[in-house]
């Protein structure tokens, strides 16, 4: 893909920026402990934690930077940050 002159971009361009590659620690969600409160999704700075049909939450690893805010804030301690082997 050729570069846009002056790094100009149309709306939605940030989706091309796959920030998941930045991750060192990966949040792993334990649905057994989850109370479906949605705090993780609300506080995720990347906006990449989505609710599934059953009301559970999971991150989109394509964009999750591994910041750990979800794990830190989860009232049920249902999210564990695990070092990722790449």
């Amino acid at each position, binding site marked *: 893909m050729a570069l846009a002159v002056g790094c*100009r*971009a*149309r709306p939605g361009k940030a989706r091309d920026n796959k920030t998941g590659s930045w991750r060192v620690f990966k949040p792993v969600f334990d649905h057994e402990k989850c109370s479906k409160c949605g705090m993780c999704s609300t506080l995720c700075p990347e906006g990449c934690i989505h609710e599934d049909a059953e009301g559970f939450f999971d991150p989109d690893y394509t964009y999750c930077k591994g910041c750990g805010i979800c794990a830190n804030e989860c009232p049920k301690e249902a999210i564990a940050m695990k070092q990722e082997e790449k």
Partner: protein
Amino acid sequence: MMEITEGSHAIAEAVRLCRPQVISAYPITPQTHIVEALADFVANCQLDAEYITVENELSALSACIGASAAGSRTYSATTSQGLALMFEVCFNAAGMRLPIIMSIANRALGAPLSIWNDQQDSISLRDSGWLQFYAEDNQEATDLHLLAYKVAEDHSIQLPAFVCFDGFILSHTYEPVDMLTQEDVDKYLPKFNPYERLDAADPISFGMYATPEYYPEFRYEMDQAQKRAKDVIAKAGKEFGTMFGRDYSALIEGYRLEDADTAIVAMGSICGTIKDAIDEMRVEGKKVGLLKIRVFRPFPSEEIAKMLSHVKRVAVLDKNISLGAKGATVIEVRDALYGSSIPVKGYVLGLGGRDVRKKDIKEIVALSEKGQGDIFYGLRKELI
């Protein structure tokens, strides 16, 4: 039509004829007369432009970025500390590939405070991506504004440009200048046709974020645009010559250089003094010539190497100093001549408005003949 006019007023008139739609500037000596004149033009309905008054230079150039991105032909002017305050905005304007034209009435940088001329201000922004033109006299300073718009706005370039002229020495001096008419300028410089522009109906952002996977390629593209500018300047400069009789197709100019043993390399108003000194030295039998650099960015390395290939020695005059190294021009001229056996010596002079006279030029030629150089020329020994 020839007019006897102050450099600043000739430049302001040339800018008016270029029909900028947005001007934003902050007054600073010795640039003030230019922006005062332009403010008058706008107030008196002699120029249909938005003149944005701001609190400082950083805001002035930021306003120009917005205006240029919105699709306006945009103008600013500054010098010295004002340009220093624009440092980060300069890099953004170039990175966003916005063809803003800015006049630089070259002045020394503080501390110590100096309102007088040298070229440290624009030289210090040589790496910012802006094209840099340097004028020898007020005619050239005036004409280069038209050329700068023509080149900067070319879709194969899309880079901003400084038009530099020595503060006070040119900006405040009355000289005869051939003033072009609106009809002339309209023929040479068509309406600004932005490659892309801000438009609420079709949103776009300028100068977005680039990860390490993309950043080097953006810088490479800017460097390529700088290099392409050589050909675009040649074409636009030739067209200027055809239309108005003054040819600016060459990035460098030789004066009595064809059979010279000693070549002096210089930029700006000092070239006039050098030409007079050369004429006198020629009468005395000394084969001296001048290579004048009109375009410092893109730097005409190959052109310089070709034009100097026959000389015995080169003396490069710098009205700037990269402290801890050498003058910026001598570093680049030496790089241009790398691999040749021609000795190149640098002379830093004229800093902070120290006068440079014909006798100084002759003394520098004598020093270069003795192989002495890479010095601050003309220091007052009793002070150090």
